């Protein structure tokens, strides 16, 4: 698929018993890709079942001069006149059927509204996604403007913010549900595997659409020691606990008037669970060591990828708190592997974000300079066709095999992992080219399948089990990014070292502490640092599988 700017061109299904509409569109509006003509509802079904979310828009004629056997709604006892009438309104019948199967698929009915029989269309949601021509017959420019307007609005809706929603109906519905929940008072419960975008959704959908003017405060409960959890969330007065040397404002107060996002809710301590229940029931908090209740107005979003009901059964999570977290406000974000039809636009979307980062912009600029390319946009192209040269356009080409490798990967780290692989693929593809003599098409940088496969299987290197006698340590490959700050490089190295140690010692923090601190009793400290580095045992276990 081709991209124009950062957005792919439209895939348009023409539903018409004649060839003329599709012929005209192909000639006069060639920037879109056309499917069909589908000459009956069965052909529409076949096409949409095959292409699913790939179709952006349907151009639907009204009259279908087709045999009775191909007519939707025809019955054996229909008279000739009834069948003829059915042919005259077949497009309307097909539209009604489309709405039941694909309720949000944009459809342009190829007639003017005034030419439709009164009451031909049901009102309501269906009409939201149905358009008419301005006149019974239109010129190419008018139809192009209409198509572009519909596709543009739809993409604007989808591309709103850093969360990728894609074109799948299920995800668009999920987004709408979140937008509705954002405006309500009930807490929102986000479920979904690690890396599926829960924190992005909390910030950029729930908080952004809540209409609240207060802050967005995020707390990852897996990084806070259980004994400090309640103070961190609800605040404390001086002397409330050992080391409490001053009054402390908690996360709830900090988020007053805004949104509080509690990630990894399963890690909430028993005390904090009780206090959270108070907030949900009374709308007040009490700082640790204090008697005074303080009202808080917070939109609460909680996330977990644990089975809370199992924790309730084990007594590790309060049943009354669990009941308060209403199932009706639970939204489950899908794993990336379940979003297969979205790979290409997801790649385009992800790279558009990555290419806005200064270090990649710098690398692109270096490449342009070395390859003597004039400044311009970067275009992501997937598939087998290399587009023609256009001045200033730098093409990042992901051949079919590279796309296949992306599509076949399991993505245990979901969107987070995908973004990292896509970004690194471009980084390495560009870096490989810098310093080489320019090829025939320096404006096309190919992201080779081998590079993608290497990245997908690189992880963070083998465990440091090979002892180096001379230095008394281990050797391990470490992955760092060009142009990162030294601080970030140091943290990256530390993170990879921790992962390698974790793997080498089967996830035993005591043994890791022995290596790191020379004291196996320091397991708790190691685990805390592990969490601070953003590492999660569950992620590593999933990756190991």
């Amino acid at each position, binding site marked *: 698929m081709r991209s124009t700017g950062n957005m792919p061109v439209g895939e348009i299904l023409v539903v018409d018993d004649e060839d*003329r509409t599709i012929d005209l569109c192909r000639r006069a509006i060639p920037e879109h890709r056309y499917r069909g003509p589908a000459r009956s509802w069965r052909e529409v079904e076949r096409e949409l079942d095959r292409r699913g979310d790939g179709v952006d828009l349907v151009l639907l004629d*009204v*009259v279908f001069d087709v045999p009775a056997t191909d007519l939707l709604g025809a019955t054996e006892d229909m008279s000739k*006149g009834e069948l003829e009438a059915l042919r*005259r309104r077949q497009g309307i019948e097909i539209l009604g059927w489309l709405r039941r199967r694909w309720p949000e698929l944009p459809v342009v009915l190829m007639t003017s509204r005034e030419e439709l*029989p009164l009451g031909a269309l049901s009102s309501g949601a269906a009409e939201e996604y149905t358009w008419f021509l301005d006149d*019974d017959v239109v010129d*190419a420019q008018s139809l192009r403007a209409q198509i572009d307007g519909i596709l543009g609005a739809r993409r604007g809706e989808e591309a709103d913010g850093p969360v990728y929603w894609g074109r799948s109906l299920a995800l668009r519905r999920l987004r709408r549900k979140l937008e509705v929940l954002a405006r309500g008072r009930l807490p929102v419960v986000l479920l979904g595997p690690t890396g599926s975008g829960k924190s992005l959704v909390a910030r950029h959908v729930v908080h952004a659409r809540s209409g609240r003017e207060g802050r967005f405060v995020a707390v990852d409960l897996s990084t806070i020691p259980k004994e400090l959890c309640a103070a961190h969330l609800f605040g404390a007065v001086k002397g409330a606990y050992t080391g409490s040397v001053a009054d402390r404002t908690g996360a709830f107060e900090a988020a007053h008037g805004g949104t509080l996002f509690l990630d990894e809710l399963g890690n909430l301590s028993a005390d904090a669970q009780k206090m959270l229940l108070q907030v949900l029931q009374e709308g007040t908090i009490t700082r640790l060591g204090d008697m005074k209740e303080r009202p808080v107005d917070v939109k609460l979003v909680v996330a977990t990828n644990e089975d809370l009901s199992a924790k309730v059964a084990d007594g590790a999570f309060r049943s009354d708190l669990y009941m308060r977290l209403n199932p009706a406000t639970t939204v489950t974000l899908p794993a990336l592997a379940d979003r297969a039809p979205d790979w290409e636009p997801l790649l385009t979307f992800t790279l558009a974000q990555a290419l806005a980062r200064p270090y990649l912009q710098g690398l692109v600029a270096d490449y342009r300079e070395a390859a003597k390319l004039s400044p311009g946009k970067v275009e992501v192209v997937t598939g087998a066709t290399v587009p023609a040269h256009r001045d200033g356009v730098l093409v990042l080409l992901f051949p079919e095999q590279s796309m296949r490798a992306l599509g076949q990967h399991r993505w245990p780290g979901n969107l987070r992992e995908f973004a990292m692989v896509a970004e690194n693929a471009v980084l390495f593809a560009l870096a490989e080219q810098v310093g080489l003599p320019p090829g025939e098409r320096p404006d096309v940088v190919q992201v080779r399948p081998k590079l993608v496969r290497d990245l997908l299987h690189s992880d963070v290197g083998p465990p440091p089990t090979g002892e180096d006698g001379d230095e008394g340590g281990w050797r391990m490959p470490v992955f760092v990014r060009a142009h990162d700050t030294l601080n970030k490089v140091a943290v990256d190295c530390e993170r990879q070292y921790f992962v390698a140690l974790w793997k080498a010692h089967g996830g035993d923090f005591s043994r890791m502490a022995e290596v790191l601190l020379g004291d196996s009793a320091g397991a708790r400290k190691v685990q805390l640092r592990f969490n601070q580095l953003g590492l999660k045992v569950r992620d590593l276990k999933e990756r190991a599988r």
Partner: protein
Amino acid sequence: MTDPTVPDALDRLRHDLGKAIVRQVTWLGSDPDPDELREALAADLLATRRSPAGAVGAVALFDGLRPALISLAGDEEWRRLDDAMGEVRAVVRVLERGAANGDDVARGVRAARAVAEACRALHRKHARG
């Protein structure tokens, strides 16, 4: 009382003839290239409906529908349609000989638009009661 075949025939007249007879000419917009316009007019008049079964021209379509609409013969819009179709027949003959000049094309476009307008007017007047 209205002949029961008339509404169906009027639907077909508006869609199959009235819309299709100006489709490609309209598609070109307000300032088309003369050669493209001639080609579009020829397509609109000679292959007004196109499907895997083949192409049917405007004259054949109109003649096919005329018997079902005989009850409208006294209607002013019908007369207007009939007159415009007379012009279309003349232009079709020139197009079929491959001898259409700029004037013929302009005449054909005017006639096709008049047919489209008359079909629409007839449909509004009779098909919706």
